[in-house]
Protein backbone atom coordinates (compact mmCIF):
# COMPACT_ATOMS: atom_id res chain seq x y z
CA UNK A 1 0.00 0.00 0.00
CA UNK A 2 1.37 3.33 -0.93
CA UNK A 3 0.49 6.15 1.40
CA UNK A 4 0.40 9.76 0.31
CA UNK A 5 3.14 12.07 1.53
CA UNK A 6 0.55 14.01 3.49
CA UNK A 7 -0.52 10.98 5.47
CA UNK A 8 2.97 9.92 6.41
CA UNK A 9 3.59 13.51 7.41
CA UNK A 10 0.62 13.43 9.79
CA UNK A 11 2.08 10.33 11.37
CA UNK A 12 5.68 11.46 11.58
CA UNK A 13 4.92 15.03 12.60
CA UNK A 14 1.50 15.08 14.17
CA UNK A 15 -0.01 18.60 14.41
CA UNK A 16 -1.49 20.14 17.54
CA UNK A 17 -0.17 17.73 20.12
CA UNK A 18 -0.73 19.00 23.63
CA UNK A 19 -3.37 20.19 26.08
CA UNK A 20 -5.68 23.15 26.62
CA UNK A 21 -6.77 24.39 30.00
CA UNK A 22 -9.53 22.03 31.02
CA UNK A 23 -11.06 24.48 33.47
CA UNK A 24 -11.48 27.21 30.84
CA UNK A 25 -15.23 27.59 30.16
CA UNK A 26 -14.48 27.93 26.43
CA UNK A 27 -12.67 24.61 26.25
CA UNK A 28 -14.40 21.33 25.50
CA UNK A 29 -12.63 18.04 26.26
CA UNK A 30 -13.38 14.69 24.63
CA UNK A 31 -11.85 11.52 26.03
CA UNK A 32 -12.47 8.33 24.07
CA UNK A 33 -11.01 4.86 23.81
CA UNK A 34 -10.95 1.93 21.40
CA UNK A 35 -11.51 -1.30 23.27
CA UNK A 36 -10.39 -3.24 20.16
CA UNK A 37 -6.82 -2.31 20.91
CA UNK A 38 -6.75 -0.29 24.11
CA UNK A 39 -5.99 3.05 22.41
CA UNK A 40 -6.90 6.19 24.36
CA UNK A 41 -7.42 9.58 22.74
CA UNK A 42 -7.98 13.03 24.29
CA UNK A 43 -9.11 15.83 21.98
CA UNK A 44 -9.77 19.40 23.14
CA UNK A 45 -11.30 22.38 21.37
CA UNK A 46 -11.19 26.06 22.22
CA UNK A 47 -14.36 27.88 21.13
CA UNK A 48 -14.84 31.59 20.52
CA UNK A 49 -17.85 32.32 22.82
CA UNK A 50 -19.28 34.92 20.40
CA UNK A 51 -18.85 33.34 16.95
CA UNK A 52 -19.01 29.74 18.23
CA UNK A 53 -16.07 29.10 15.98
CA UNK A 54 -13.36 26.60 17.00
CA UNK A 55 -10.21 28.70 17.27
CA UNK A 56 -7.79 26.05 18.53
CA UNK A 57 -7.61 22.30 18.98
CA UNK A 58 -5.15 20.00 20.72
CA UNK A 59 -4.89 16.24 21.13
CA UNK A 60 -2.95 13.56 22.87
CA UNK A 61 -3.26 9.96 21.72
CA UNK A 62 -1.82 6.77 23.14
CA UNK A 63 -2.15 4.38 20.26
CA UNK A 64 -1.01 3.18 16.90
CA UNK A 65 0.13 5.29 13.95
CA UNK A 66 -3.33 5.35 12.40
CA UNK A 67 -4.92 6.62 15.61
CA UNK A 68 -2.31 9.36 15.91
CA UNK A 69 -2.71 10.42 12.27
CA UNK A 70 -6.52 10.34 12.57
CA UNK A 71 -6.52 12.60 15.60
CA UNK A 72 -3.93 14.91 14.09
CA UNK A 73 -6.07 15.28 10.98
CA UNK A 74 -9.20 15.79 13.10
CA UNK A 75 -7.64 18.73 14.97
CA UNK A 76 -6.58 20.30 11.65
CA UNK A 77 -10.06 19.97 10.24
CA UNK A 78 -12.03 21.34 13.19
CA UNK A 79 -9.97 24.50 13.46
CA UNK A 80 -11.81 27.42 11.85
CA UNK A 81 -15.09 25.49 11.70
CA UNK A 82 -18.15 26.37 13.73
CA UNK A 83 -19.08 23.76 16.31
CA UNK A 84 -22.12 22.82 14.22
CA UNK A 85 -19.99 22.30 11.12
CA UNK A 86 -17.44 20.29 13.11
CA UNK A 87 -20.25 18.07 14.35
CA UNK A 88 -20.83 16.86 10.77
CA UNK A 89 -17.33 15.45 10.25
CA UNK A 90 -17.67 11.73 9.48
CA UNK A 91 -15.14 8.99 10.07
CA UNK A 92 -15.37 7.90 6.41
CA UNK A 93 -13.89 11.27 5.40
CA UNK A 94 -10.90 10.52 7.61
CA UNK A 95 -10.65 7.00 6.16
CA UNK A 96 -10.61 8.42 2.66
CA UNK A 97 -8.15 11.16 3.41
CA UNK A 98 -5.73 8.80 5.14
CA UNK A 99 -6.43 5.69 3.03
CA UNK A 100 -6.89 3.62 6.16
CA UNK A 101 -7.09 -0.15 5.68
CA UNK A 102 -10.14 -1.95 7.11
CA UNK A 103 -8.19 -3.17 10.14
CA UNK A 104 -7.62 0.46 11.08
CA UNK A 105 -11.07 1.92 10.47
CA UNK A 106 -11.81 1.95 14.19
CA UNK A 107 -9.05 4.56 14.54
CA UNK A 108 -11.05 6.99 12.39
CA UNK A 109 -14.19 6.18 14.39
CA UNK A 110 -12.23 7.09 17.48
CA UNK A 111 -11.30 10.47 16.02
CA UNK A 112 -14.91 11.22 15.03
CA UNK A 113 -16.11 10.21 18.50
CA UNK A 114 -13.45 12.43 20.07
CA UNK A 115 -14.65 15.49 18.12
CA UNK A 116 -18.27 14.81 19.09
CA UNK A 117 -17.33 14.21 22.73
CA UNK A 118 -15.37 17.47 22.89
CA UNK A 119 -18.24 19.46 21.37
CA UNK A 120 -20.85 17.96 23.64
CA UNK A 121 -18.61 18.62 26.64
CA UNK A 122 -18.34 22.25 25.55
CA UNK A 123 -22.10 22.50 25.05
CA UNK A 124 -22.94 20.94 28.39
CA UNK A 125 -20.70 23.45 30.13
CA UNK A 126 -22.17 26.42 28.24
CA UNK A 127 -25.85 25.57 28.35
CA UNK A 128 -27.16 29.05 28.79
Amino acid at each position, binding site marked *: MAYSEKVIDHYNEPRNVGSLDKSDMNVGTG*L*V*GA*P*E*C*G*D*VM*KLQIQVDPLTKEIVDAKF*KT*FGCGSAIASSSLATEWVKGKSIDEAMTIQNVEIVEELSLPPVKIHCSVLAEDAIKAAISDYKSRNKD
Partner: protein
Amino acid sequence: MALEQSACQKCESVLVSRLFCFSCNALQTFPNEVDFFEVLGFPISFEIKSAELEERYQQLSLELHPDFYGSAPEAEKRLSESATAILNTAFNTLREPTSRADYLLHLLCKKQKLDERSLPDGFLGEMFFLQESLDELLESGNEAELSGMREDLNGRQKNIEADYFPLFKKFEDNPEDPEILQQLQTHLNAERYLRRLLDRIPAID
Protein backbone atom coordinates in the same frame (compact mmCIF):
# COMPACT_ATOMS: atom_id res chain seq x y z
CA MET B 1 -24.82 -25.99 27.98
CA ALA B 2 -25.08 -29.30 26.13
CA LEU B 3 -23.06 -29.81 23.03
CA GLU B 4 -24.97 -30.81 19.96
CA GLN B 5 -23.28 -34.03 18.90
CA SER B 6 -22.31 -34.53 15.26
CA ALA B 7 -21.87 -37.89 13.58
CA CYS B 8 -18.88 -39.19 11.63
CA GLN B 9 -19.18 -38.62 7.89
CA LYS B 10 -17.91 -42.15 7.28
CA CYS B 11 -19.03 -44.51 10.03
CA GLU B 12 -21.71 -42.33 11.68
CA SER B 13 -20.31 -42.79 15.16
CA VAL B 14 -20.82 -39.88 17.53
CA LEU B 15 -17.88 -37.48 17.16
CA VAL B 16 -15.85 -36.18 20.08
CA SER B 17 -14.17 -33.55 17.91
CA ARG B 18 -15.76 -32.12 14.80
CA LEU B 19 -12.44 -32.68 12.97
CA PHE B 20 -11.78 -36.38 13.45
CA CYS B 21 -13.49 -39.66 14.18
CA PHE B 22 -11.67 -41.66 16.81
CA SER B 23 -13.78 -44.75 15.96
CA CYS B 24 -12.81 -45.14 12.31
CA ASN B 25 -9.81 -42.74 12.16
CA ALA B 26 -11.37 -40.61 9.42
CA LEU B 27 -10.62 -36.93 8.90
CA GLN B 28 -13.86 -34.93 8.77
CA THR B 29 -14.59 -32.07 6.43
CA PHE B 30 -15.74 -29.11 8.48
CA PRO B 31 -17.53 -25.80 7.84
CA ASN B 32 -15.59 -22.52 7.87
CA GLU B 33 -17.40 -21.25 10.94
CA VAL B 34 -16.90 -24.39 13.05
CA ASP B 35 -16.78 -23.37 16.69
CA PHE B 36 -13.66 -23.92 18.74
CA PHE B 37 -15.41 -25.90 21.47
CA GLU B 38 -16.61 -28.34 18.82
CA VAL B 39 -13.09 -28.49 17.40
CA LEU B 40 -11.67 -29.63 20.71
CA GLY B 41 -14.76 -31.56 21.76
CA PHE B 42 -15.74 -29.64 24.86
CA PRO B 43 -19.21 -28.42 25.88
CA ILE B 44 -19.75 -24.71 25.27
CA SER B 45 -18.83 -23.45 28.72
CA PHE B 46 -16.18 -21.27 30.30
CA GLU B 47 -15.23 -24.07 32.63
CA ILE B 48 -12.45 -26.10 31.03
CA LYS B 49 -9.71 -27.86 32.94
CA SER B 50 -6.47 -26.83 31.32
CA ALA B 51 -4.91 -30.28 31.72
CA GLU B 52 -7.87 -31.86 29.90
CA LEU B 53 -7.70 -29.25 27.16
CA GLU B 54 -4.00 -29.85 26.69
CA GLU B 55 -4.50 -33.62 26.58
CA ARG B 56 -7.24 -33.38 23.97
CA TYR B 57 -5.11 -31.03 21.90
CA GLN B 58 -2.23 -33.51 21.93
CA GLN B 59 -4.52 -36.43 21.16
CA LEU B 60 -5.96 -34.61 18.15
CA SER B 61 -2.56 -33.33 16.97
CA LEU B 62 -1.34 -36.92 16.91
CA GLU B 63 -4.16 -37.77 14.50
CA LEU B 64 -4.49 -34.64 12.38
CA HIS B 65 -0.99 -33.38 11.83
CA PRO B 66 0.23 -33.25 8.19
CA ASP B 67 3.33 -35.22 9.22
CA PHE B 68 1.11 -38.31 9.29
CA TYR B 69 -0.33 -37.68 5.82
CA GLY B 70 2.94 -37.58 3.89
CA SER B 71 1.87 -40.26 1.44
CA ALA B 72 -1.89 -39.56 1.54
CA PRO B 73 -3.84 -38.24 -1.50
CA GLU B 74 -3.52 -34.48 -2.09
CA ALA B 75 -7.04 -33.65 -0.86
CA GLU B 76 -6.50 -35.47 2.40
CA LYS B 77 -3.14 -33.78 2.86
CA ARG B 78 -4.77 -30.39 2.48
CA LEU B 79 -7.58 -31.30 4.85
CA SER B 80 -5.07 -32.40 7.46
CA GLU B 81 -3.24 -29.11 7.12
CA SER B 82 -6.31 -26.91 7.50
CA ALA B 83 -7.69 -29.09 10.30
CA THR B 84 -4.40 -28.74 12.19
CA ALA B 85 -4.42 -25.00 11.57
CA ILE B 86 -7.89 -24.60 13.07
CA LEU B 87 -6.97 -26.95 15.92
CA ASN B 88 -3.99 -24.72 16.73
CA THR B 89 -6.13 -21.57 16.62
CA ALA B 90 -8.84 -23.17 18.74
CA PHE B 91 -6.37 -24.38 21.33
CA ASN B 92 -4.63 -21.01 21.55
CA THR B 93 -7.97 -19.24 21.94
CA LEU B 94 -9.42 -21.50 24.61
CA ARG B 95 -6.23 -21.90 26.60
CA GLU B 96 -5.99 -18.35 27.95
CA PRO B 97 -8.87 -17.19 30.19
CA THR B 98 -9.32 -13.79 28.54
CA SER B 99 -9.34 -14.99 24.95
CA ARG B 100 -11.61 -17.87 25.96
CA ALA B 101 -14.03 -15.49 27.69
CA ASP B 102 -13.99 -13.16 24.69
CA TYR B 103 -14.64 -16.01 22.27
CA LEU B 104 -17.39 -17.54 24.40
CA LEU B 105 -19.10 -14.18 24.89
CA HIS B 106 -19.31 -13.70 21.13
CA LEU B 107 -20.73 -17.20 20.72
CA LEU B 108 -23.36 -16.61 23.38
CA CYS B 109 -24.58 -13.18 22.33
CA LYS B 110 -25.14 -13.81 18.65
CA LYS B 111 -28.68 -12.46 18.92
CA GLN B 112 -28.16 -9.93 21.64
CA LYS B 113 -26.61 -6.61 20.75
CA LEU B 114 -24.03 -5.56 23.33
CA ASP B 115 -22.53 -2.14 23.89
CA GLU B 116 -19.06 -3.04 22.69
CA ARG B 117 -17.37 0.03 24.15
CA SER B 118 -18.71 -0.13 27.69
CA LEU B 119 -16.29 0.58 30.52
CA PRO B 120 -16.56 1.08 34.28
CA ASP B 121 -17.25 4.73 35.29
CA GLY B 122 -14.18 6.93 35.21
CA PHE B 123 -12.06 4.08 33.84
CA LEU B 124 -11.04 5.80 30.61
CA GLY B 125 -9.87 8.93 32.43
CA GLU B 126 -7.82 6.78 34.73
CA MET B 127 -6.26 4.92 31.79
CA PHE B 128 -5.34 8.23 30.15
CA PHE B 129 -3.79 9.37 33.39
CA LEU B 130 -1.85 6.09 33.76
CA GLN B 131 -0.61 6.32 30.17
CA GLU B 132 0.68 9.83 30.85
CA SER B 133 2.35 8.73 34.09
CA LEU B 134 3.89 5.79 32.26
CA ASP B 135 5.37 8.18 29.68
CA GLU B 136 7.03 10.09 32.51
CA LEU B 137 8.27 6.92 34.23
CA LEU B 138 9.72 5.59 30.99
CA GLU B 139 11.48 8.86 30.41
CA SER B 140 12.95 9.01 33.90
CA GLY B 141 13.71 5.28 33.87
CA ASN B 142 12.55 4.83 37.45
CA GLU B 143 12.67 1.03 37.64
CA ALA B 144 11.22 0.71 41.12
CA GLU B 145 8.13 2.72 40.21
CA LEU B 146 7.83 0.94 36.87
CA SER B 147 7.80 -2.47 38.48
CA GLY B 148 5.36 -1.18 41.10
CA MET B 149 3.06 -0.08 38.31
CA ARG B 150 3.41 -3.40 36.58
CA GLU B 151 2.54 -5.33 39.71
CA ASP B 152 -0.48 -3.15 40.28
CA LEU B 153 -1.70 -3.64 36.72
CA ASN B 154 -1.04 -7.38 36.87
CA GLY B 155 -3.11 -7.56 40.03
CA ARG B 156 -6.01 -5.76 38.41
CA GLN B 157 -5.79 -8.05 35.39
CA LYS B 158 -5.93 -11.12 37.68
CA ASN B 159 -9.00 -9.70 39.45
CA ILE B 160 -10.78 -9.31 36.16
CA GLU B 161 -9.89 -12.83 35.09
CA ALA B 162 -11.19 -14.21 38.36
CA ASP B 163 -14.61 -12.72 37.58
CA TYR B 164 -15.13 -14.51 34.25
CA PHE B 165 -16.06 -17.84 35.73
CA PRO B 166 -18.72 -16.66 38.23
CA LEU B 167 -20.25 -14.36 35.60
CA PHE B 168 -20.59 -17.12 32.98
CA LYS B 169 -21.96 -19.41 35.68
CA LYS B 170 -24.51 -16.76 36.59
CA PHE B 171 -25.50 -16.49 32.94
CA GLU B 172 -25.98 -20.26 32.67
CA ASP B 173 -28.45 -20.02 35.56
CA ASN B 174 -30.14 -16.86 34.21
CA PRO B 175 -29.87 -17.06 30.42
CA GLU B 176 -32.56 -14.39 30.02
CA ASP B 177 -30.62 -11.71 31.90
CA PRO B 178 -28.95 -9.45 29.30
CA GLU B 179 -27.03 -7.52 31.95
CA ILE B 180 -24.65 -10.39 32.73
CA LEU B 181 -23.22 -10.55 29.23
CA GLN B 182 -22.89 -6.77 29.17
CA GLN B 183 -20.95 -6.98 32.42
CA LEU B 184 -18.60 -9.52 30.85
CA GLN B 185 -18.11 -7.24 27.86
CA THR B 186 -17.18 -4.40 30.21
CA HIS B 187 -14.65 -6.65 31.95
CA LEU B 188 -13.09 -7.70 28.68
CA ASN B 189 -12.88 -4.10 27.45
CA ALA B 190 -11.16 -2.99 30.64
CA GLU B 191 -8.73 -5.90 30.41
CA ARG B 192 -7.60 -4.77 26.98
CA TYR B 193 -6.70 -1.28 28.21
CA LEU B 194 -4.70 -2.81 31.06
CA ARG B 195 -2.90 -5.14 28.67
CA ARG B 196 -2.06 -2.23 26.42
CA LEU B 197 -0.42 -0.46 29.35
CA LEU B 198 1.43 -3.61 30.43
CA ASP B 199 2.78 -4.09 26.90
CA ARG B 200 4.47 -0.73 27.14
CA ILE B 201 6.36 -1.55 30.35
CA PRO B 202 9.67 -3.20 29.52
CA ALA B 203 10.48 -6.37 31.41
CA ILE B 204 13.10 -6.11 34.12
CA ASP B 205 14.91 -9.26 35.24
